[in-house]
Each structure stands twice: as structure tokens, then as C-alpha cells.
């Protein structure tokens, strides 16, 4: 049995409390005395029915006002799984509570009243879920009994919401038509909606893949507490935030940068051969180093960013407004540092997703800021690592938690970030009547088995620049290191799948679009995908990049001058173009838009292939996208 944490957002009107009551009741998680209390209370309040909302709205003020104010946690279990529900209010004035509930959830249930369709509130819940990086979103279209179990109505709502979700970059989206009041499709299949062929809500909750948000690759161990019973033992206690570690592995300690090895990974039940994300352990080292709370233990070849200028999305949770320049305590992993907001970039209207320029944040505002910290943080982007990408701000006078923050990166790179998540990638074409179905086996599971991160290495450069030669040598090296690799080459894809395309600008764009999609499939399958394409247009490369999560797409610009390419001319293309036999020859009769800021730039003149490949491997190691020889048997 494992655990699924999910959040629900909504108000009583959506039937949220009824749905939770139904789940608890049908899984026999409500006890008779609780039901009796609710029956008594409903009766005293003169309600003619058993108000299941009274089960979840626990505070006196909530029952008096008939609303959910705070986050309440509910528990139920089936033989398959234990569930923790973070039940949150849906009104805009409780955005901070929604954010709180979403912060630990792996799935969000969004309720839509079938009569009202997609309201602003439903979109807000979707936005917050995507902002907090919840990997699965389940849209329960409720009160189907009140729209005559209409398939058309259901499909209309799905289409509208799917269109909205696409803008947010939510891809694991599931729709289920239900009636919480009558129980249709909650635990048992509905007899009234034979046209619905999907699973029930509980079945989906029982079978959805958990742990998808866990980063199993990048080892991060924030030191929480030092256990030192006597002079002979010194254990660095903490919970593995991400990745895994074994005794004997080389480690590096931040901020000192000193290296040593893991002597043992200890628990109260003895030493263990492996500690994985989520495990509370104590690490001992072969050499005595000065390590204390707030330090972070990592692998030398896979470092987090060490930054004190941070680009972040902030949700303001305090009644007192935030003004740039005010000092706060910033709590990140087990570290606490002084910090201030150095720039307020914009506020997002959570209902329209429009950006607004403001001079301060009020309660429940969400927006983008730059933060300066007194000491550096050891961080990853929130999109890659929830544990090392999140922080809170604490008011030093009231001690209140005034903001929740999600790290986008360092400010140095902020201006280069080409894609804004809230803008979404360019629209991908979709066949009619097709609904996105989530991946069956998650990428993180595949990566855990492969023991290396998946990635896309996109080689671009003029014909004859040396792309293919380097890419082939690189793939061989990676494969020999134990990585699962795939090489996509222009000449290959133009046989078969892209054999219908020529070399006009339109066909080149379509060629790269298809290659990007193919690369994305191999990526999802866990491979290190090496693509070697002239790919002359910047927009086409950016589109391919947009299909891959941040940090996993590495553009490699093989920067060989056109004169040198012409001199090498391995396929005789330049010669033929010179004789007018080829039209649209890049670098001759067709433009090449060189990358402005590629992740890796390669010079080939006067260097041999081995040397170039070594350089690329080094650059990949720095970025943490390399099979780590020391890790998990890789």
C-alpha cells in the first residue's frame, strides 16, 4: 500500500464537500458516531437532509457561515492505497489556503458544476495546481444528474477546460462525469451514463501513478541536525530531498565545497545500502568535516545552483502588503537567511492570467519577483525539484509566514528564459475528438531504472560543420557509459517518416516540427536523445525546446565558419549548390539563424573529435544531465 496526497478546491455549491463525504462514506471511512453528530447538527439547523459538508467543515466559524475557510486534512484508505486529502476552500480570498493544500499534493481534483460549466473559479484552481507543479489534474464534472446525464454537455465542458489547461502546460488531465450526491462514477460506475467508458473517480485515484513529481536523479541532502552522542559518532541527519545515495560514494558539501566519501547511511534499525528521496537517515563521512544544519550534501558531478539573486514566483499569504526592499527571513530546505525583494516584475491576475505592473503585493496576490539573499541558497528550479525549488518568507516582526515562493532560476538567467509558462508553448496540432491521456509509466520511473536523466541534445550548425561526426562519437561514448541513447539524423528521418518533405522554408519547418515531436517521445521513454539537424530557423528550434522540460533540452551549436564548411564539403553539397544544382542550400541560398545563447558552443577548427566530445561531456556533467558513473549502479 502506498500513499496518494491530493487536494480538492471548491465551495459547498460545487458539491465538493458532498464529494468528499461520498468518498469517505462509500469507502467506510465515516464512523457511525461522526454520522450521528452530523445528523444531529443538520437537524438542529433545520436542514431537511444530512448535510455531509458538516463532516469536513470542522471549525465553528465554518459551520456558522457554511463555508470552508482553512485547509482540512482527511484520511481514507482502500485495500490498494492510503489517501490524504487536503481539502481547501475555493473562493479567491482563500487563495493562500489553496496554495498550502496544493504544495504537498500529487493530484488535484477540480470540481465543475455541469450546469454552470467552466467558471473563473475552476480556471483559478487549474492555474494554482499548475503553478504548484501538481503532476495530475482530475476534473470532476459534477451534478450530471441535473443536466439529464448529457454527453454533449460533458464534452462541451471538457473541450473548453482542455483548451484552457493547454495554456498552462498541464498535460496529465483527466475528465470524469459524476454525481456526488447520487454516487454515480464516484466509487461505482454510473448506470445513467452508459456512454462514458472511462474509469470511476475512486478507480482513477487508486491507479494514478504516485511519485511522478519526485526527482530521482539529482541527489540533494539538506543537513537538518547533527547527531553526536559521543566523540566517536557524528551523523548528519536529514531527509533525502531528491535522488539517492549509497555508502562509498563521493560527496561534496555546500557551501564549503569540500569533498569526502559516504562512510555509512544509518537508521535506528542499522546501516542501509541505499537512501532514496523521502528517507530520513543519518549520513556519516570518511573524513571529519565541519558540517552543520543548513549545509547541503550533493554529488561533485551534479551540483545545484549556488545563488543569491533569485528569480521566483511568489504567492503573498499575509494581510500586511509586501513592498520591495523590506527585509524578511527566507526559509529554504533547512537553511534560513535574510532576504529582500529587489524587484517586483509583475503580478498575475489569477482569473485572466494577465500580467499587471504593481508596486506591492496584497494578500493572495501571485506574481514574479527577484529576491536578493544575504547568503547564497543551494537551489534547483521548482519545475525540476519541488524540495530544493521552494521557499517561504517570514516576517521578522510578526513571525508570520508571509509568502510561498517557487524558484524559476537565478536572476542572471532570468532575461534569457525564452518561454513563459503562463503564456504556454505554441499550440500543438491535435486531431479532432482526441483527449490527452497521461503517460502510463512516468518519466521519473524510467529515469530511475535507467539510472540517468533523460535529455535532448540538439545539434545545430551549417551543413558540413561536423555535427553528425561529433554526434555519432558522442552517442557511442554515452552508450558505452551505460546510457540509453537515440540518435536522430536528418538523412534518416528524411527516409520514411519525413520522406514527403522537400527543402522549402515551410517543409524545413515541418521537418523540424516532426523531429521535435519524435525527440520528445524518445525523451519521454527515458533516452538521451541526440538530434543532429541543420535546423536553420531559431523559431523551429525554440518550438522543439518547448516540448521538453526546463533544463533538459541542451542546444549544442557547432560553430564552424561557412568557409571551413565549404572547404570540407563532405557530401559535395556546397559544390552542387555552387553549380546551381541545389536550391535552398543553407549558408548559400537560404539563411541560417545562429543560436544567440546556446547551452553549449563547439569550435571544430583545429580540434579532433575526441577532444570536442570530451568538452561536451564536461559541459553536460556541469548541467547534471549525464549518466553518473558513481550512482545507482549506472
Amino acid at each position: 500500500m502506498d500513499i496518494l496526497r491530493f487536494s480538492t478546491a471548491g465551495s459547498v455549491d460545487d458539491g465538493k464537500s458532498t464529494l468528499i463525504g461520498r468518498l469517505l462514506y462509500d469507502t467506510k471511512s465515516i464512523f457511525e458516531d461522526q454520522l450521528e453528530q452530523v445528523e444531529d447538527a443538520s437537524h438542529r439547523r433545520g436542514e431537511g437532509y444530512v448535510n455531509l459538508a458538516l463532516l469536513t467543515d470542522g471549525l465553528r466559524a465554518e459551520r456558522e457561515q457554511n463555508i470552508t475557510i482553512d485547509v482540512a486534512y482527511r484520511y481514507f484508505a482502500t485495500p490498494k492505497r492510503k489517501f490524504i486529502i487536503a481539502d481547501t476552500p475555493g473562493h479567491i480570498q482563500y487563495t493562500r489556503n489553496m496554495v498550502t493544500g496544493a504544495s504537498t499534493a500529487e493530484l488535484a481534483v477540480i470540481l465543475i458544476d455541469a450546469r454552470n460549466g467552466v467558471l473563473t473559479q475552476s480556471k483559478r484552481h487549474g492555474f494554482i495546481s499548475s503553478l504548484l507543479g501538481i503532476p495530475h489534474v482530475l476534473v470532476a464534472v459534477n451534478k450530471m444528474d441535473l443536466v439529464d446525464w448529457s454527453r454533449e454537455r460533458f464534452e462541451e465542458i471538457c473541450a473548453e477546460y482542455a483548451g484552457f489547461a493547454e495554456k498552462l502546460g498541464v498535460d496529465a488531465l483527466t475528465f470524469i462525469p459524476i454525481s456526488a450526491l447520487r454516487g454515480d462514477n464516484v466509487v461505482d460506475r454510473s448506470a445513467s451514463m452508459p456512454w462514458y467508458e472511462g474509469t470511476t473517480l475512486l478507480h482513477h485515484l487508486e491507479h494514478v501513478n504516485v511519485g511522478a513529481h519526485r526527482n530521482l536523479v539529482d541527489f540533494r541532502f539538506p543537513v537538518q541536525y547533527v547527531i553526536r552522542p559521543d566523540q566517536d559518532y557524528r551523523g548528519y541527519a536529514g531527509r533525502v530531498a531528491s535522488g539517492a545515495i549509497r555508502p562509498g560514494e563521493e560527496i561534496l558539501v555546500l557551501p564549503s565545497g569540500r569533498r569526502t566519501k559516504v562512510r555509512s547511511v544509518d537508521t535506528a534499525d542499522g546501516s542501509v545500502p541505499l537512501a532514496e528521496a523521502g528517507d530520513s537517515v543519518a549520513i556519516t563521512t570518511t573524513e571529519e568535516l565541519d558540517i552543520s544544519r543548513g549545509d547541503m550534501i550533493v554529488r561533485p558531478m551534479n551540483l545545484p545552483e549556488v545563488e543569491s539573486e533569485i528569480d521566483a514566483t511568489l504567492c503573498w499569504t499575509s494581510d500586511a502588503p509586501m513592498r520591495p526592499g523590506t527585509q524578511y527571513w527566507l526559509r529554504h530546505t533547512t537553511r534560513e537567511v535574510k532576504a529582500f525583494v529587489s524587484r517586483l516584475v509583475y503580478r498575475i491576475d489569477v482569473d485572466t492570467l494577465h500580467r499587471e505592473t504593481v508596486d506591492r503585493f496584497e494578500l493572495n496576490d501571485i506574481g514574479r519577483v527577484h529576491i536578493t539573499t544575504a547568503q547564497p541558497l543551494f537551489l534547483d528550479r521548482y519545475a525540476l525539484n519541488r524540495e530544493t525549488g521552494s521557499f517561504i518568507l517570514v516576517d521578522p516582526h510578526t513571525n508570520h509566514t508571509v509568502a510561498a515562493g517557487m524558484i524559476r532560476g537565478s536572476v542572471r538567467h532570468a532575461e534569457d528564459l525564452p518561454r513563459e509558462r503562463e503564456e504556454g508553448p505554441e499550440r500543438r496540432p491535435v486531431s479532432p475528438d482526441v483527449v490527452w491521456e497521461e503517460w502510463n509509466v512516468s518519466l521519473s520511473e524510467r529515469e530511475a531504472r535507467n539510472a540517468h536523466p533523460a535529455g535532448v541534445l540538439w545539434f545545430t550548425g551549417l551543413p558540413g560543420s561536423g555535427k553528425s561526426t561529433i554526434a555519432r562519437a558522442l552517442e557511442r561514448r554515452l552508450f558505452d557509459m551505460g546510457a540509453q541513447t537515440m540518435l536522430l539524423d536528418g538523412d534518416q528521418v528524411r527516409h520514411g517518416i519525413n520522406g514527403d518533405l522537400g527543402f522549402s522554408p515551410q517543409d524545413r519547418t515541418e521537418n523540424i516540427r516532426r523531429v521535435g515531436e519524435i525527440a520528445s517521445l524518445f525523451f519521454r521513454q527515458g533516452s538521451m536523445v541526440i538530434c543532429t539537424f541543420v535546423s536553420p530557423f531559431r523559431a523551429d528550434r525554440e518550438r522543439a525546446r518547448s516540448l521538453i522540460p526546463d533544463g533538459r533540452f541542451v542546444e549544442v551549436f557547432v560553430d564552424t565558419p561557412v568557409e571551413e564548411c565549404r572547404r570540407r564539403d563532405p557530401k559535395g553539397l556546397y559544390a552542387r549548390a555552387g553549380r546551381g544544382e541545389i536550391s535552398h542550400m543553407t549558408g548559400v541560398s537560404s539563411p541560417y539563424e545562429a543560436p544567440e545563447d546556446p547551452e553549449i558552443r563547439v569550435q571544430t577548427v583545429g580540434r579532433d573529435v575526441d577532444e570536442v566530445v570530451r568538452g561536451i561531456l564536461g559541459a553536460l556533467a556541469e548541467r547534471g544531465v549525464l549518466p553518473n558513473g558513481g550512482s545507482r549502479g549506472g
Partner: protein
Amino acid sequence: MPKDFHPHLRHLESESIFVMREVAAQFERPVLLFSGGKDSILMVHLARKAFAPARVPFALVHIDTGHNFPETLEFRDRLVAEVGATLHVGSVQASIDAGRVHEEAGPNPSRNGLQTVTLLDTLAELKADVALGGGRRDEEKARAKERFFSHRDRFGQWDPKNQRPELWNLFNGRRNPGEHFRAFPISNWTEMDVWQYIAAEGVAMPSLYFAHRREVVERDGVLLARSEFNTLLDGEQWDERTIRFRTIGDATCTGATESTASSLEEIIAEVAASRVTERGGRSDDKRTEAAMEDRKKVGYF
């Protein structure tokens, strides 16, 4: 615990250990509230695991209503000796004698409400800045809103409508002088999780939890055990039955349930089939709809 055994219990254990270590790191003078019940025994077990091979860095505090089952005190003293912890006992009787509180009138005086004053006095005396408790969110609807780190003002009060948001695993224990915290490391455990874990780990439990013969009287649907603190009303009489306790607290308000479950396996089977919450046997919760919220606001456990 074996690695593949009950992943959800491993997860809960790891989470509780994380919270306990966070308490030890963020506070100066932590204490662990020990009632003698299964949840506080579980807490001591988890604390030992969190800091092994070092000693538990928390003193134990027992708020003694004076209405104890003798088995509870014996078990408490054995465990304290085994752990090597310091035990502080806050006595409700002493609070009564000092005129800090007044005993309830009537045939069934409960000292449950009085405990709050003794608890706050004891914490103040020890200068404790955090008290770890074995409260679980599944116990009661007001507890469902509790944080892992729950702030108490200078008067020991809880303000449920103005709680600090608790995001991710980032716990904010910052406080002003005179304020304190309650920390609830086993918030996410259910009664079933507790029993399954106790069975998996072989944690010793007081005999009161296992079925035995005992004289009881049924009053308002609750079975009260015979003791010097419970007196019969007109028309009532003691009746020997086979019972066990699902929770252990003040002997005047902790009800027994009729049960033949005499092993952990049988208790787990009984909990799985039970249709009444464990607090269903607590007459103190039956007083009003918001009884627990009201008690918690003024500083109850």
C-alpha cells in the same frame, strides 16, 4: 522496518522523524507530552529512532489528573527508565490544592478540562518553548485543521482562524518570548496506521489495550471502568465484562469497548471493522459540537 514492508508506514515514519528533528533543531527547550496512551508511546518510539544512537533530546511531561489506571503509571515509569529520559509530572491535584482550578461538581467529575491549566503552568515552569504531542488529524474535526507546527500565544491560546500557512516541508517555528508551539509529528497517521506500525515494529503496549475482564458500568452509552474515581448513580451496578480500551486517558471519562481482541492482529482486525471512532468512547467530546475546538483554543492538548 523492512524496506518493502508497508510503504505507507515507512513514509509516515520518515515524515514523523523529519518533524521531530526539525523540532530539536528549531527550539531551545522542547518537551514531549506523555499521557501513557498508545499515541504517546508511539511518539517516544519514533523519537528514539529519530536521534539514535544519541538519547532522545526531549524531556517527557505527564499531566497527571490523579485519576489514573495503575497500569498506566507502571508502564510509564518502566518506559522512562528504559529511554533514560527525564520525566516531569504536572499534577492536576496540586493545581486544585493551590486554588488554580476548581473540581467539577456532580457525580462524575471530569478533570479533563482542568488539565489545561496544569499543562500551561507546567510548560511555563519548565520554560518549554515547544510541546510535542501525539495528536492526529483523523481523531476529530477541529484537529483536522492543525498544523505540524502550531503556534500558541502568550496565554497558550490557539487561534484556528489565523494559523500560519504550512507549505511543503518548511516549518516556521519562529516565536516571541513567552509564546510556545505545539508540534504534532504524527498528524498524518490514522488509528489503523498506528496499530499496524506498532505490530510491525513490535512496540510494547500497556495491557489495558488488550481484552481482559473488568467491572464496568454503562452510562450514556459509554462503558466506565470501576475505580475509586467513578461512583455509581441510583439504579446502577457494576457488571463484569470482557473489554479493552481504544484510548487511555483520565479514568473518569475514558470508555471501554466490549472486545475479545487480545493480540495486535486481533486489534487490527477489530479497528478495520469498527464503525465508531476511537473518541466515540470519550464522554468529554460529547459535551458540545465544538467541544474539542473550544478546549484547544484555550490551550488543551
